[in-house]
């Protein structure tokens, strides 16, 4: 598999900041981190891959994506917004139902057992 498929393609750059211990994110779920005033949803996949995108769901106007169910559609990892169930691709930030809408992606890394995000 191509490396890109398992990492977020960052759309923003900024400073790296440590967010939490990996253990604080239960497998197959997300958390929201407040980084330099931005709400960033960070997801931990079953295999410990990490993705980071905006927590803000533009279709509902609520900051909720970190609480969405994650999974895949045709092999592409996605999160489903808990409000109106729009799907966002975790790699690209693009909304599956509305390709004109794309969320910011952030670089995210595991250093030792700590999760770091660049924002």
């Amino acid at each position, binding site marked *: 598999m191509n490396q890109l498929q398992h990492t977020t393609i960052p759309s923003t750059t900024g400073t790296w900041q440590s967010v939490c211990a990996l253990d*604080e994110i239960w497998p197959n779920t997300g958390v*929201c*981190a407040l*980084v330099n005033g931005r709400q960033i949803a960070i997801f931990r996949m079953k295999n410990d891959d990490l993705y980071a995108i905006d927590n803000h769901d533009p279709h509902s*106007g*609520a900051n909720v994506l970190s609480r*969405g*169910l994650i999974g895949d559609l045709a092999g592409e990892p996605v999160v489903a917004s*808990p409000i109106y169930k729009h*799907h966002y691709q975790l790699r690209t930030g693009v909304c599956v139902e509305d390709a004109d809408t794309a969320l910011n992606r952030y670089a995210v890394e595991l250093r030792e057992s700590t999760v770091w995000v660049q924002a």
Partner: protein
Amino acid sequence: MNEHIRILVVGNGMVGHYFVQELVKRHPDLSAAKLEVTVLGEEPRPAYDRVHLSSFFSGSTAEDLSLVEPGFYDRPGLELRLNARASSIDRIQHTVTLTDGSTLAYDKLVLATGSVPFVPGVAGRDRENCFVYRTIEDLEAMTAAGTKAKSGVVVGGGLLGLECAKALCDMGLETHVVEFAPRLMAVQVDEAGGQVLRSKIESLGVHVHTNRNTTAIVDGATARHRMVFFDETWLETDMIVFSAGIRPRDELARDSGLAIGARGGIAIDDFSRSSDHDIYAIGECASWNGEMFGLVAPGYDMARTACAHLFGETASTFQGADMSTKLKLMGVDVASVGDAHGKTPGCRSFHYLDELRQIYKKIVVSEDNKTLLGAVLIGNADEFGTLQQMALNAMPLPDNPEFLILPASDGKEKPGLGVDALPDSAVLCSCNNVSKGAIGEAVAAGACSIGEIKACTKAGTACGGCVPLVTQVMKAEMRKHGMAVNNHLCEHFPYSRQELYHIVRVEQIRTFDELLAKHGKGLGCDICKPTAASVLASCWNDFILKKDLASLQDSNDYFLGNIQKDGSYSVVPRMPGGEVTPDGLIAIGQIAKKYSLYTKVTGGARVDMFGARVEQLPNIWEELIAAGFESGHAYGKSLRTVKSCVGSTWCRYGVDDSVGLAVQLENRYKGLRAPHKIKFGVSGCTRECAEAQGKDVGIIATENGWNLYVCGNGGMKPRHAELLASDLNKEDLIKMIDRFLMFYIRTADRLQRTSTWRDNLEGGLDYLKDVVIHDSLDLGAELEAQMQHVVDNYQDEWKTAVTDPEVRKRFRSFVNSTVGDNNIVFVSEREQMRPATPEEKRLEKTIPILALVD
């Protein structure tokens, strides 16, 4: 000369009215079309539904039965005269004289005079409390007499007679059916079928006397009448209803010299014209090819034909009718198709008789074994649709036609009908005249479940007998349109929800990862994960926010609250039966005030508190738990509330303690996860103040126990619940609810409420009764045990969540900060807070949000 065409319709029964509707359909403004239509009806009210006349006894009113839309007869060019009876026709002058002496001129005359009940020429037949069964007035008189009678006799064991017997039974009378022929329903049913029907009806408490010719009715010794039979035996009874067939009302026609059929009835041609071409005859008064038709569908057909011909159209003709019938008599399926008696020369028949379940089935096939000629089905008429279509369309029979009526053995599907062979014109639903073509159109327009097909075509919504066939056609049509006819849950699981439920049970699977590894692929999604979570919870009832289950939970379950549009949550503590103490209310008020929550009383009779941020939830619950509350599961696809009226404890009309039962039931089923939410209602008397018949499970107190209703719904598509069982004691009631709910959980689709599930359930209410009450699948004990497991493993989810530090830690807005989400902003309205609109957020016209309470 009058330039308008004067049409006179004599008779305002179902067929007469249908004819007028056809006229109006063509020319909504009759006057503008130069038509002058006069309709005579001898009854005091306009046309009503005589087919469903017996529902008058179960509470339908004359208005319910009316077929006439308000204002229908108030249009220019149309006049309806009630209580008006024609006495003679002058064919030369083109006039009709009424019994009041007035005369009406016509250009075209339509006779829709119907029929009269046949009363055998028995001495004493005119005695008091002897009735016929034809009009609403007849029924009103029967009802009045029924209140003073102890016993009743129906003379005539045909279709109407048995319906009438049911009415007498329902009035609480000792009921007898006296039939001249050697068996019941002699026209439709053969000897063996008549036997099965008889024992079924006798088991319902009706006394059946066949081969009985009444010779006289005289004064009785123990009751009002004594009926004396030809062999000197006798039967005493308080009231008698004659229902021994019908006779066409052709006297107007006879007296005016019109041709009459060999067995009576006004002779008509293929255009429904009598021997005088300015006079049409339609419905039960008409005789076509010497045959009369006592069903409404051929009458409608004649009305359409006559109307078309009146306007010069000769394309449509009346060509006789299929007299196949399927009905439910006193709860017993009775169906007959085509040549039920096997009168065709050289034909052969196949019989199936199950004396245990009292089922009899017969098919009659042609000499060459290639086509189906007729059938009789008693006790179970599931195959009616298939057999009727096979016979009507002369479709080729399968190699072993006997399998058409034999019960399906394990794993083998019954030979169906090759539905592709059916012509588009084939009428699948004869009740509502829905053709195969109409089903195809509905599928093309996007309907792809039997529920949707019913909604848009009305097929299968009356007797329901055609539902299996309609389903087959729907699937075939979907395949034709390239629509996937698979019930796979999603791309990750090639199984339906029902199949997954089975897999989880049988293989004792307890986690999604195990299910996915063994039976699915990929990572899962927001369809299969919550479905699996629900199935796992229904089976094992583990805490849903356990580490390996939390990631499966949908929006609301995920934080045990109802997520709102702004990402805040609402909190609903359980109030079983809607009962709450003053202290409880005070505690809720204090907590809502402390956390600045908007409060509203819900439709389910409890209090909803809105506007909690995720990090506030555990604190709010902790305080609610301390005040004696637990989770109300308002967020779950699970039992919501058991609504109740105040019941016999306080209410002066109450028959039983509805609140007590509601509390007991809510506590039993709380936390039960299901394919969708479940609502209950319990009413303490038939006034039904708890609206139980609009709930998934509704219970109404009776003098003798509890009536159980199921599969009702309010909301988007209201559905009246159906009576599943009557007069149950509490123990049996709970047993039936256990079975019903577990059967629903086991077989429903994801997000399918009980109402839709029921609409899609093949076999309908009878099947449900068989499974739940008669335990036909031998599942009763298993379903009860499974429910008991869920009940025994109940825990208050809020309590578990707040007492487990690791779970509690999940409840925060940010993993790296204790502040709240500053996008959740409230403004004040009607002395409470509500979410700010985006506009208000921009204008910052807000009230400050409270600091995090610790």
